[in-house]
């Protein structure tokens, strides 16, 4: 990167007034992104943000790069087209739980399956915000919303489980109130070659206030979250005295110093293990809730496969120009 393209977060702030509700975690995510972008070593003109519909999807308007606020649920497909047209771009998908898991569910699973080098940030607030408070595919059973006044009866998706089932190579989760860690995750996501999915546990102060407070509140988060780091022991707690071990086919929380447990007994996080068994268990874990990069397994991207194949076909083809094709094979003279 040349001297001239060293950016600060201000370079990625557009002139548009941000219009989210006061106190929304979306502000945190925006700020974290504006801080992360200058650290990624990508040129501003090569950055593209594509969003669908929903509160989160206003995001591209606020980043001074190329962007498209598209239609409901389709951002992964649009972003796929952008990336296939120009694989040199850094392409980001901004989506919410309704946008990606309900109306856009099909595109969501297929984009993960194909593994283009895209970055997807899923703002999960377990509610429809922009349409003013209906339950979403991540809303809990019993949750009272505009469309479930007596309590929600539709069981929720776990975005992480769905993602792993759809062959996600990179899955990370982060609380919506931890900007520093979030900034770092965005940078890691950009570095990763393949589709990366980051689920942000995002509070909606208007329609679902406190939905993650038991996990993300400053007072409890050290005890309720385990922030995973590759190749490091699975340790958590305010006192760093708790950890995870495997007991049969289940993860179990243990306390260091009790029952002769030492730090050496704890599981070591291997985000790069192609076998997703343990990643799935971590994704499902309710106490502590796993955050950080749970899975990051690099393999050939879709665009790399396409490029290799195209080069191979080009090298073996007798057609350089369309005329070669048009006048080939079964032609005849009149």
């Amino acid at each position, binding site marked *: 990167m040349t001297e001239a393209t060293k950016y600060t977060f201000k370079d990625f702030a*557009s002139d*548009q007034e941000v219009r989210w509700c006061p106190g929304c975690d979306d502000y945190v995510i925006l700020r974290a992104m504006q801080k992360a972008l200058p650290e990624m070593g990508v*040129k*501003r*003109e*090569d*950055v*593209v*943000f*594509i969003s669908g*519909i929903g509160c989160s999807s206003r995001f*591209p*308007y606020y980043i*001074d*790069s*190329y*962007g*498209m*606020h*598209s*239609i409901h649920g*389709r951002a992964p*497909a*649009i*972003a*796929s*087209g*952008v*990336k*296939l*047209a*120009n694989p*040199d*771009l850094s392409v980001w998908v901004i989506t919410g739980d309704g946008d990606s898991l309900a109306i856009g569910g*099909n*595109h969501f699973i*297929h984009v993960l399956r194909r593994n283009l080098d895209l970055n997807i940030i899923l703002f999960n607030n377990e509610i429809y915000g922009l349409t003013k408070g209906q339950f979403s595919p991540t809303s809990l059973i019993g949750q009272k919303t505009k469309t479930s006044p007596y309590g929600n009866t539709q069981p929720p998706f776990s975005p992480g489980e769905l993602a792993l089932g759809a062959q996600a190579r990179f899955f990370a989760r982060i609380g919506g109130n931890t900007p520093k860690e979030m900034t770092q995750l965005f940078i890691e996501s950009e570095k990763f070659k393949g589709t990366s999915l980051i689920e942000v546990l995002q509070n909606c102060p208007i329609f679902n206030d406190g939905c993650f407070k038991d996990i993300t509140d400053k007072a409890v988060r050290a005890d309720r979250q385990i922030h995973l780091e590759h190749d490091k022991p699975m340790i958590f707690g305010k006192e760093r005295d708790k950890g995870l071990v495997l007991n049969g086919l289940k993860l179990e929380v243990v306390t260091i110093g009790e029952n002769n447990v030492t730090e050496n007994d704890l599981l070591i996080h291997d985000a790069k293990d192609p076998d997703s068994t343990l990643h799935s268990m971590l994704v499902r874990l309710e106490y502590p809730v796993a955050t950080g990069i749970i899975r990051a397994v690099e393999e050939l991207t879709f665009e790399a496969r*396409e490029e290799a*194949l*195209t080069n191979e*076909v*080009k090298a073996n*083809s007798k*057609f*350089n*120009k*369309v*005329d070669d*094709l*048009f*006048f080939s*094979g*079964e*032609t*005849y*003279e*009149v």
Partner: protein
Amino acid sequence: MITAKTKNKQEILEAVVIRFVGDSGDGMQLTGTQFSDTSAMFGNDIATFPNYPAEIRAPQGSLYGVSGFQVHIGSIEISTPGEDLDLLVCMNPAALKTNLNALKAGHTIIIDTDSFTKKNLEKALYASNPLEDGSLNNYRVIEIAMTSLTKEALKDIEGLDNKSITRSKNMFALGMVYWMYDRDMNHTLEFFQQKFKTKPLIAEANSKVLKTGYYFAETLELIPNSYTISPSKMPKGTYRIINGNTATAWGLLAATEKCGLELFLGSYPITPASDILHELVKHKHFGVKAFQAEDEIAGITSSIGASFAGDLAITTTSGPGLALKGEAVGLAMILELPLVIVNVQRGGPSTGLPTKTEQSDLLQAMYGRNGESPLIVIAASTPADCFDWAYEAARLTLEHMTPVLLLTDGYIANGSEPWKIKSINDMPPISHKQISGGDPEKWNVYDRDAVTLAREWAIPGTKGFEHRVGGLEKDKITGNVSYIPENHEYMTHIRAEKVERVQNSIPDLKSDFNDEGDLLVVGWGGTFGSIHSATKKLNEEGFKVGHVHFNYINPFPKNTEAVFLKFKKIIVCELNTGQLVSILRAKFTNIEFSQYNKIQGLPFGASELTQKFKTLIK
């Protein structure tokens, strides 16, 4: 015992219509294609019409499993696959039952008698065997035990399984027809060598059966004469046989090379449009990016993404797929990005008649989106001219920065005809609006060209031109979100006017045969051949009839009304209940339009049209 004898009488014909019919596994499409290709290479003008069921292998012998291929060849101009048959080649009872009504009285049927078993007759719902009950007395029936003769011919080739043997019987029929119409077998023999390169046994079997059929016909006294159809007087040049879907794909390839961009196709398989995708995926050597998406919506939205990033973006589909794409078409329209949407129409509504033709998506093409969202709508009219209209679709979308919807239909998509090959050098230039430099400070996202109203296309990677677009209404200059009432009205009008101004870059409408007279016949899209034949015939009979055929539908050519006013009566012919006519009536309120419609999943026959037209001119 058959004795060798030389060809007897040779009769010279101007044109002939032949239909090959059999079970959907009998290879009738291949047989028909081989006959048409050979005839075209001989110099005949041709038009073909494959007519097959939606089921890949319908239960053997069933009425709905019948697959047919009709070909019209001539030494004169051929513009349709023809109507009444001169020859019916019939591989089983079900095929006879469903196709006999099209054969002219006194004309020939070639029948594989081996297939007329009790079981097959029952499946075809025949109470008695038509070969025995006199019901074919009005025709010249040539009964051949084709299956047995095929088996006999192949008995000395070792290693052939039974299935491969019986599957070659279509070549026996083809060989006979080649002899009857004095065709050379070489093209087909070479075809076998190519197609079965890795299966020499199959190539040998097919070649042998073809020749056996040919010599069998030559020596058979049942066929009293053979026919000659002289080469047609077509303009000099290099030709090939092409169907509409291939021509569409190639037109897009030509446009891509001409404009210098890369081609992106986002598509989802759907009958009868899939062949465009099949064709384009082959051309990675031209850098074509053909992306089979997870659904119709991803097909178009991936294309919108590719367009945003600077590719010439295409999406292809058929009616139900266009319905699914509707919202995204509106997005492309409001973003004012180039995008070609190809809709190969089929019988509707809903799943409708997937393998049959219809023109019932015109109103969907024009209005099938939420909000005010006009598109450029054009239609191709013959298999070969799909090339030109696909090319034109690309030109218009790139130069005017708004989506173009190209309508073709199952009839011209699958039908084929000779195409005088166009070199890329013969094609008109195509420019595009991509920004390569300039001062971003003096640039706004929705600044417009003063003449076309097209905006400029700044693609990601272009420094200084970073911007955001979206589906929300946008400020007329900056493109930022705007809820200002007057701005919305302004933008609605300007997007419509942009489409209207395409009139300035398209040619005038021309009436064929006469530019004034008693009757003007109006058509659009794939009905060109039938209407052309019918109006030509009426003019030959001394009637003063004109024919205008719309390829530009939105907008219409500038002089449309002036052309209409030169005729006493106007009739609009469509394969729907009257969609173009409803648009014309709304637009030209001072003009009276009659209409003629057919909704049977079939093209117009020229004779039904002439009959109808005569009632209007007395």
